[in-house]
């Protein structure tokens, strides 16, 4: 009896939690389908009276959101691809290849994690201006090309590559890059997928840096375009909700598809070295 009460209680709490957690998102989706003006009606409506795709159509045709979605996709993919390469190379090297100063270098990199990213943004902007990269896609990609966290993830995983495997390959005369490409990368596939998901999600959702670097609204990523839209259309609730849905949809989809890797990346021992 007590057990049933406990179970019911637990599920009830969980249910309340889920409702509280998801209600803003659910309302967002519901409002995006409402005809104009309905979302702000008093008393409130939870469901649209009439299902309409007007706002989505507006966003795609008038507000050019597809262009921004493409920008976001391009930037996220390019950054992910490049950062996978650079981070995995460095992570593997820190784990398995010996070179002078390796440990100290890695320690210095870890120390950098404490520095907030905003400290670097102003001079980085000026530096990119000298290089002529302001208001270009490369200006957004380049600062994200390599990251200490990515190196860290890969290194932790690569530590478990068996030395014997690598030694055998070296005995066979395989070059270091070949070893990396054909042995290490396949071995590290789970952490690489995790890293790819993290990077893609992070780049897609990134707001401040694209806001600073991109001046042309052609190049805006989705979050920046959405903020821009808000500046002008704060009265159009339903339109803004549709914009939010479109902005979030890809990353939510990606997350749900690959959540195993994402969550595994966070779990698994939260100890600090």
């Amino acid at each position, binding site marked *: 009896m007590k057990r049933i009460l*406990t179970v019911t209680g637990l599920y009830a709490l969980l249910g309340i939690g889920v409702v509280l957690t998801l209600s*803003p998102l659910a309302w967002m989706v519901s409002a995006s389908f409402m005809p104009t003006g309905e979302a702000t009606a008093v008393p409130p409506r939870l469901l649209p009276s009439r299902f309409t795709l007007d706002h989505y159509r507006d966003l795609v045709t008038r507000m050019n959101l597809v262009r921004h979605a493409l920008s976001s996709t391009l930037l996220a993919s390019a950054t992910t691809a490049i950062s996978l390469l650079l981070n995995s190379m460095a992570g593997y090297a820190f784990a398995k290849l010996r070179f002078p100063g390796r440990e100290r270098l890695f320690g210095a990199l870890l120390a950098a994690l404490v520095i907030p990213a905003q*400290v670097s943004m102003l*001079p980085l902007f000026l530096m990119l201006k000298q290089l002529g990269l302001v208001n270009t896609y490369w200006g957004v990609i380049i600062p994200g090309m*390599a990251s200490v966290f990515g190196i860290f993830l890969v290194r932790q995983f690569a530590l478990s590559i068996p030395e014997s495997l690598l030694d055998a390959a070296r005995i066979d005369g395989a070059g270091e890059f*070949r070893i990396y490409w054909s042995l290490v990368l396949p071995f590290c596939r789970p952490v690489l997928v995790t890293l790819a998901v993290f990077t893609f999600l992070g780049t897609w959702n990134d707001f401040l840096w694209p806001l600073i670097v991109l001046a042309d609204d052609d190049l805006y990523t989705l979050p920046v375009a959405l903020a821009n839209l808000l500046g002008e259309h704060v009265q159009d609730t339903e339109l803004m909700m549709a914009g939010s849905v479109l902005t979030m949809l890809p990353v939510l989809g990606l997350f749900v598809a690959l959540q195993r890797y994402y969550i595994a990346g966070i779990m698994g021992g*939260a*100890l600090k070295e």
Partner: protein
Amino acid sequence: MTAAAERSSAPFRVSPGIAFVAPALCAIVTFFFLPVAGAVLLSFTDFDIYAVASWRNLRFIAFGNYSRLLRDPLFWIALENTLYFVAVGAPLSMGVSLGAALLVNARLVRFKGVFRTLFFLPVVTTLVAVAVVWRYVYHPRFGLLNQGLGLLGVGPIDWLGDPRWAMPSIILMAAWKNFGFNMIVFIAALQSVPESLYEAARLDGASFPQQFRHVTLPLLAPTFLFVSVITLIGYFQLFAEPYVMTQGGPANRTLSIVLLMYEQGFRWWNMGYAAAVAFVLFVIILCLTLVQTRLR
């Protein structure tokens, strides 16, 4: 790229390790460390709109920006707001995460994966998009929150317009957005507590709260520290929520340090001053992190 492949057989030996690390390291040094050093230098100058026009209008003023910062009421307001956000928001977020982790991890609960994913969903959403949604949720007239409170008989509150309620609104939103992340960490830690300890406690007649206090909490202590460090570091960098939802208002009540830095640096182009603000923020975070880890 492929040049590194043949390096091992080339007469001039570059250690392959260095070759592998080089690209990432170059990128990080060039696009992070160098700008950080530049920021420190910048904070010793009076770089402003005149300097944008011409480098000759730049002067080295040593600690001028820092002393100006200390005398600037806006900086202290921003610091106070940020501390308020961290002091209230971080424990709230961690508490909710712990609670959610305990719930999801409870023995009697099935479909753990589903609940875990659902609670984690806000974390992966785009911050700007949810800030937009929450802006409407907080609307005094037709926002969901006031409607819900109205059902309970509480009068409408102007969440984002009332100086007393603006920061709590942001705290609430930040907690909602981030609790899933720490929840996962806590779940992992909870799962690593051996079941035998709980059994032993139960055999000794401990009730659930007592089990929690004497078994769970002590074993969770290192995780707690870890979670609090990362939450603190993240929360000090509050920017996007006030930028999208309140623009620092009302009456500067949601002006955070990073928002101040952004406004000074990119809106008014007082880059020297903004760099000083950023550096002070870094020092604050560093000190707090050190204090926390020493407390262990």
